[in-house]
């Protein structure tokens, strides 16, 4: 892959960004982490990301509002929702509106990496996991 995937990761639980960022960097993504949805939306206003990964349930602004903002500003960007089991129906509904995929917490980084790979494929920039072999196992 010539150009790294630009990923914005938004979750108001700091642990999610802290634990996920290294896992995504290892597959060649360039990751910006946000805990505040307003700050994330402001950043999305400035920069086109390939993929936005956002929690669905946040206090100031929920994931669907973030998705709407992305869709209006950058229609090419793929949005992936992180959800708890209680909100799975909402996430499925969101997929009908154009969200690329969703993942339910708790999850393994590998599960999200697979969805990211699918999104990259859909963007025409597939990730070559085979070239990452041992590094990925360590991640």
């Amino acid at each position, binding site marked *: 892959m010539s150009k790294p995937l630009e990923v914005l990761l938004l979750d108001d*639980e700091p*642990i999610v960004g*802290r634990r*996920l960022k290294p896992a995504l960097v290892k597959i060649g993504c360039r990751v910006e982490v946000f805990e505040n949805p307003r700050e994330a939306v402001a950043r999305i206003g400035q920069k086109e990301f390939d993929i936005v990964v956002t929690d669905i349930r946040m206090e100031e602004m929920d994931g669907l509002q973030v998705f709407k903002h992305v869709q209006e500003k950058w229609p090419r960007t793929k949005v992936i929702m992180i959800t*708890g089991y209680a909100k799975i129906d909402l996430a499925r509904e969101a997929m009908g509106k154009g969200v690329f995929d969703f993942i339910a*917490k708790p*999850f393994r980084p590998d599960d999200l990496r697979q969805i990211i790979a699918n999104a990259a494929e859909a963007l025409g920039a597939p990730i070559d996991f085979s070239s990452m072999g041992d590094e990925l196992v360590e991640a």
Partner: protein
Amino acid sequence: MNILKKLKQIRHKEPGIREFCIQTIRFKKFLENARALLDLFEDGREKALGEYIFDRHYVVTLIDSVIERLGMMVYDGCVLVPESGEKLYTTYDTHKRTARNLIDFSGIVKKAVSPGDVTPETSKTVDQEYQLLSEALQWFNGKDAPLDSTVMAFMKQIFLKVIQGHGSSEVIKNRSLFENSCGKIPDMGIYLIDLWKDQLALPEGNSSINDFNSIPLNHLLMDAGGKDLKAHPNPDWIAAVGEYQLSLNSLRADFQFHLVTLATGDADADFIFIFADDAAILDTLLPPGFHTENTGYGQFAWNLGISEKTIEDSLMIIGRNLFN
């Protein structure tokens, strides 16, 4: 069909038989709640050991689910052994307080740590979600937790009370209740009650166990008499059966034995649970794969999440060892 609708179908006119059926159904619910608790423990353990991403909400929900399910188990225990109710609820309240303390204490620590203060090197040691899960697992079933302070220890106490209550139950000891209601000598020395039908014993003139459409009962007796089931002059057993359910109890005063099994073909739901007051019996009775727990009162054994084939094989071996 929900349990209330099923209960309405129990139309045994004899109050003692009706009570026996209700106790049997309640005990199965009790086991299902215990199993759900073990599944919650396992889920938490898996998340702690594996490379999972979870948040505080997951751990809090896990703790709340344990408390909720433990409450259901306590309620079942109180229905089965009403005289233990006060003691069980007192201990349950202690566990509820422990749960709240776990959640609240973790919240305080969380506020005290600013994300900006966390360096990558120290982040693993201050991830409050992982710390909270670790503490919750200690409370569930921790090896280092103080004796009798864990949920698992409390579950064992409830089990013991329920089993002791079951062993001394007037209904289960009332051999004449089953003799009078059946009115005939049963096959294999087993009185049979269909849990969900308006009949106590078999149709007039027919005394074959094969007429009962119960999958686990058929498995149990498959290798213990087969088609040549013989009428037994000294019945020692009472079995409550449904199509997928079997609850087998010893009627002997000097031997307490209780087997409960569900064999629906769904491995996630099916199980075999056995209690015997003589641990030596279980040592010779059980096929491999059972988890056993010894107590001063007897031995528990269970096998959960088992395939259709395993449940068939296990019941066949148990039946052969028990009746041959």
